[in-house]
């Protein structure tokens, strides 16, 4: 049981570190690199740096509200 917890914790840590490094590189460092450097091939164009987090945030909000609504409906049905 603890091993599953440790595995999930490790997965979360790696996900957060990778997102942090990729996004830092994308937003903070890439503007100062010459535009014909090879590293630009590995990163999308910079408009996506705003669209993707915005989309993810909106998806998260939708999912949260759907979950809350579902739980509220289920509890109301049980008590009625």
């Amino acid at each position: 049981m603890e091993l599953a917890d440790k595995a999930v914790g490790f997965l979360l840590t790696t996900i957060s570190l990778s997102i942090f490094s990729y996004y830092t590189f994308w937003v903070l460092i890439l503007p100062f690199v010459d535009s014909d450097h090879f590293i630009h091939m590995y990163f999308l164009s910079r408009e996506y740096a705003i669209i993707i987090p915005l989309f993810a945030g909106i998806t998260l909000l939708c999912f949260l509200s759907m979950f809350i609504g579902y739980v509220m409906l289920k509890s109301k049905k049980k008590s009625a």
Partner: protein
Amino acid sequence: MKHIVKILGLLVTISAIWIGLLQASIVSSSYAWLLPVYLIILLGCYGLFMVGVGLMFFPTCPQESHLLQKDIAEAKDFLKRKGIDVNSD
């Protein structure tokens, strides 16, 4: 109350720095506009990281768990003898 004041103060400082950066044009304008988004994502990343680290290094106490189970069994036995039904559902 003091906690809210602290958080608001932090927010005001950060926005002042950001507006100063926009006005002084040390870095290009499009660059400064991306900074608040970056800070929010940084905050989310930090939260996720703390959760992951806490999960990884959470101490489980097997001896205490064993003692606790023994205590639970003893309490259930005692109450059953007194006539109270404590079957967990």
